[in-house]
């Protein structure tokens, strides 16, 4: 008797092709983003967010710890918010989120665009979008 597929372990289901690897990547990158967002949120509270920022500002920082996101707050100085540590955290979050998000858009598009040619265009566009967003985002993080 064959086991129900949903109760098979990850190992038994196998990770042979690109789609299966991206399926796992989507879930692991979600956990990675949770870690980075909680790290940024904790960092904001340690650096004095409680008395100088409103809720929306703290959330903006947590989801993308880039110094331009806290420039309109009551902070006396944003120096500690622009260290390489935060730029690296922001870069990691950007790259994870872009890969996770662009692949997600491809999955959504595949539900509506079912032709072979259309799907090839979707993939081409997705690679262009992912490269462009990663590069522009990194440029913004490291120059702001």
């Amino acid at each position, binding site marked *: 008797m064959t086991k129900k597929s*949903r*109760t*098979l*372990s*990850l190992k038994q289901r196998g990770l042979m092709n690109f789609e299966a690897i991206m399926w796992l990547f989507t*879930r692991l990158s*979600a*956990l990675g983003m*949770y870690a980075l967002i909680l790290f940024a949120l904790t960092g904001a509270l340690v650096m004095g967010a409680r008395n100088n920022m*409103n*809720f*929306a500002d703290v*959330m903006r920082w947590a*989801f993308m710890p880039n110094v*331009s996101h806290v420039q309109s707050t009551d902070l006396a100085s944003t120096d500690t918010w622009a260290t390489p540590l935060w730029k690296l955290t922001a870069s990691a979050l950007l790259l994870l*989120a872009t890969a996770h*998000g*662009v692949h*997600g*858009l491809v999955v*959504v598009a595949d539900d509506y*665009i*079912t*032709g*072979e040619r*259309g799907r090839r265009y979707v993939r081409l566009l997705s690679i262009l*979008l992912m490269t462009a*967003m990663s590069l*522009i*985002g990194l*440029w*913004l993080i490291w120059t702001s």
Partner: protein
Amino acid sequence: MGLKRDVSLSTGLRYRGPAGYLTFILHRIGGVGMGIFIAMHILASFVGGRFGGAINGIYENWAFQIFIFFCVLFHAINGLRITILDLFPKLLDYLPEAIWIEWAVFIPLFGLSVFVILKTALGG
């Protein structure tokens, strides 16, 4: 050749499946919403000037903040539920319970956030 669909889009939208259906469609709306928002936000910040400022101005509006926070928070909480259940597939037997827990986490967190955003935006 593409797949053949047996139902129209309007029939599809009116479909009410078991518990997972609402979370599925909200996860999708949240994901696409964030994709559009982040892409436009990155481009607007890159272009800068009056055009970029006008686009980024929309994002500081409280109504937009509530919408995008719904997308982000729901996508994050639902995504964590999907991740946990997919990495530990034995738990899939408790899918309806997991979705109830998910709403029990999402509704208070989102409600409190909306209250705080509105208080800051309208109360000054």
